[in-house]
């Protein structure tokens, strides 16, 4: 019996690097556990539990689109690297919960092979006694036998001389540094003639209880300086020999009972995934630690910041985001500010934001532009998405004003990659505010710039753009408040159905009135609280131990939404649509208050 427990902590080869061709999903198995193994377009190799979190269908029959893996059954999309779900077609308007994240396994490429394992510790097998200048993987041969059954026949197949006089194969000496590795060194190089001979390392991949894959590599053959025919002959020779060893062993084992299968334990979700993030006193908690990896100028006033995790340990992996998501960044001066992520699909090794230096900065953009240096450490929140992108629209219209391009850029990148039709309109005061122009021009969607328009010209253009409403097309709007208001008013006047108009404000332009005092009943907690004039509902809740997430705390982002069970809210936010406000079944607890004397909340 192999020591199954010990084998869990080893690296095992599970494929050849050349097996992972672009846009393919390799079906791998190690110690009974199936893996969906795929190479993204950025060359990252993903080794995932081979089952969709939704209905358990194998992801190895899924679609590798270069940035995400799609399940064939209901189209759930999982991001490169994090395996976090980014989109559920049956719930097109919602961002998937962060807990929908598949199990991932470490993967690395070495000796022309892909290595993985359940929880590998320590180094790969070291090839100290062979020529390590070049590696040429042999064709992998899977044998219906255990690795112990295979070990001796494999060595004998290579070391035993045949009685025939024409047996001029090289003579090998064998060494087995561990139970899964065999090193064959050419003992006598004198008789080999013109055929190149090479030391061979064999790694036995324990696939499952009764199956083992022989993964061999020829050591030290420079493929570029070897005639292709010679190399092919050599590969065919070894393949024949391995198949002969396989066939002989399988026939001797034909009557042996098959061993009990190894049943891998599939962990539900990791503990830090399953537990909800702790809420801090301030509500906009910033539990992630990120490092400023690069700062680039995009224009005289806009800088691009790239944030990376502190190290490449799995636990430092940045949580998955979707187009439209933002993060709260805690700045060196103590301020917490929200920035939309502009990452394209599959770009999961960093967060990217673009920030305009505002002349009337309240301290946020100024701190980012003036104080931040490459290498600085920052705290950020996990990504939140209250501006989610549907991917099922017949056409998507993205209308950006100035730096409001940022969330729409992430959306355009996703739609472009999925081949969905979209149009991007960028309204800007001057040419220098047009960002990412060459990328946007090269993308599949229509890209139109409207520069230097007066408010009335903007209104006229908007009226033209939105003249023909369509219930199967969607509008996404982001920009400065006047432009956003103009776009929303025009869409309403043109009778775009409200559910097709999505918008995100930078900040709440309205003056807030907190002069009212009211009572709240918390239905779940059984508390009755008084909200005095001059204090927000959110802060009263917090003072009484009822914490809920928040982000912008000015009624723009939608994070602190609370369900209203009874009473009439006094909405002061710019997140909810007019009909949502009229329904009165929810409110933004950071700014909104009550028209009735009492509100009953679902808290």
């Amino acid at each position, binding site marked *: 019996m192999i020591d199954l427990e010990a084998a869990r902590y080893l690296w095992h080869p599970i494929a050849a690097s050349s097996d992972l061709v672009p*846009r393919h999903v390799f079906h791998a198995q190690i110690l009974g556990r*199936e893996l969906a193994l795929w190479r993204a377009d950025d060359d990252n190799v993903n080794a995932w539990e081979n089952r969709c979190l939704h209905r358990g269908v194998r992801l190895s*029959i899924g679609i590798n689109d*270069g940035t995400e893996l*799609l399940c064939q059954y209901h189209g759930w999309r999982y991001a490169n690297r994090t395996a976090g779900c980014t989109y559920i077609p049956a719930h097109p308007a919602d961002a998937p919960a962060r807990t929908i994240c598949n199990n991932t396994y470490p993967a690395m490429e070495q000796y022309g092979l892909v290595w993985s394992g359940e929880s590998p510790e320590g180094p790969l097998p070291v090839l100290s006694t062979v020529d390590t200048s070049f590696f040429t993987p042999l064709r992998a041969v899977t044998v219906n036998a255990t690795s112990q059954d295979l070990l001796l026949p494999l060595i004998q197949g290579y070391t035993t001389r045949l009685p025939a006089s024409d047996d001029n194969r090289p003579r090998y000496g064998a060494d087995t540094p561990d139970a899964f590795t065999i090193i064959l060194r050419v003992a006598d190089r004198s008789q080999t003639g013109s055929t190149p001979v090479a030391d061979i390392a064999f790694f036995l991949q324990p696939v499952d209880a009764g199956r083992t894959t022989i993964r061999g590599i020829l050591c030290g053959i420079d493929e570029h300086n070897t005639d292709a025919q010679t190399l*092919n002959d050599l590969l065919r020779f070894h393949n024949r020999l391995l198949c002969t060893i396989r066939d002989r062993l399988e026939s001797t084992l034909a009557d042996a009972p098959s061993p009990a299968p190894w049943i891998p334990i599939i962990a539900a979700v990791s503990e830090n995934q399953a537990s909800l993030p702790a809420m801090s006193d301030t509500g906009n908690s910033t539990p992630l630690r990120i490092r400023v990896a690069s700062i680039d100028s995009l224009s005289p006033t806009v800088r691009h910041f790239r944030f990376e995790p502190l190290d490449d340990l799995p636990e430092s992996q940045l949580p998955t985001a979707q187009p439209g998501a933002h993060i709260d960044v805690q700045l060196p001066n103590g301020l917490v500010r929200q920035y939309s992520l502009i990452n394209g699909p599959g770009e999961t090794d960093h967060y990217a934001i673009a920030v305009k230096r505002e002349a009337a900065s309240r301290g946020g953009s100024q701190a980012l532009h003036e104080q931040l240096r490459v290498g600085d450490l920052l705290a950020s929140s996990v990504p939140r998405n209250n501006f989610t992108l549907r991917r099922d629209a017949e056409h998507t219209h993205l209308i950006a004003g100035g730096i409001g391009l940022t969330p729409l850029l992430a959306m355009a990148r996703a739609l472009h990659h999925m081949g969905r039709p979209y149009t991007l309109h960028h309204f800007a005061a001057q040419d220098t505010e047009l960002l990412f122009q060459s990328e946007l021009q090269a993308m599949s969607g229509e890209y139109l710039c409207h520069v230097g328009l007066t408010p009335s010209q903007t209104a006229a253009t908007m009226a033209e753009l939105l003249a023909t409403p369509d219930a199967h097309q969607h509008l996404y709007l982001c920009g400065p408040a006047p432009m956003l208001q103009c776009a929303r008013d025009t869409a309403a006047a043109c009778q775009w159905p409200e559910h097709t108009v999505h918008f995100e404000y930078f900040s709440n332009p309205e003056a807030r009135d907190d002069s009212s005092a009211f009572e709240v009943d918390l239905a779940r907690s059984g508390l009755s609280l008084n909200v005095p004039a001059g204090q927000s509902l959110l802060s009263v809740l917090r003072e009484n131990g009822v914490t809920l997430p928040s982000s912008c705390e000015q009624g723009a982002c939608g994070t602190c939404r609370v369900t209203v069970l009874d009473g009439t809210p006094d909405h002061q936010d710019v997140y909810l649509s007019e009909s949502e406000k009229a329904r009165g079944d929810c409110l933004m607890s950071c700014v909104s208050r009550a028209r009735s004397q009492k509100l009953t909340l679902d808290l």
Partner: protein
Amino acid sequence: MITLYDYELSGNCYKIRLLLSMLGIRHEKHAIEFYPAAEHRKEAFLAINPLGELPVLQDGELTLRDSQAILVYLASEYDTSGNWYPLQDPRTLATVTQWLCFANAITASAGGARLADGFFHPLDADACRSEAHRLFRVLDEHLWFQERERQDWVATTASPSIADIACFPYIMLSEEGGISRIDYPAIRRWTDRVKRIPGFIPMPGVFPAGPGL
């Protein structure tokens, strides 16, 4: 007009639907219920094909049975490129024919296991499975070395031939007969390539591939 006597769940009928679609040939389908009605054994169908087997293709006066024969006919008659069945090149033509015969062996083994498991035919499913694995090993080895020589297809053709179409359905449906393809990575990559041939259509149990690079 071409008429195909067709059963949706038959891999042999699927071959014909695939090639008709890839060559863009207009046709109509006449559904014959293989299971459970066994219409292929009824008088009306036996008058068309006394063997009682699907598919059958009618093109004008011509009535043709046997999926491989139909593929040969469609490619020879309707493919203007001459690539699908390279009549002008005897050596290549022979390799195509060799793999057409191999496809028959796949139908008998992998297809047989699926018939036994899914359609309750009195066949020895275990024997079918072990024969299918023997064939898959041969094909996987062949395709692995083909890949090394930058050959994408089963026969030594520069573009897909009817040999690829003939082998594809019962390989792709093998799991319905309890035959996993996990040990055949070169076959799995080749099935992606077949799915990316323009005009490819799926069938129940066969999923489409995403776009290639």
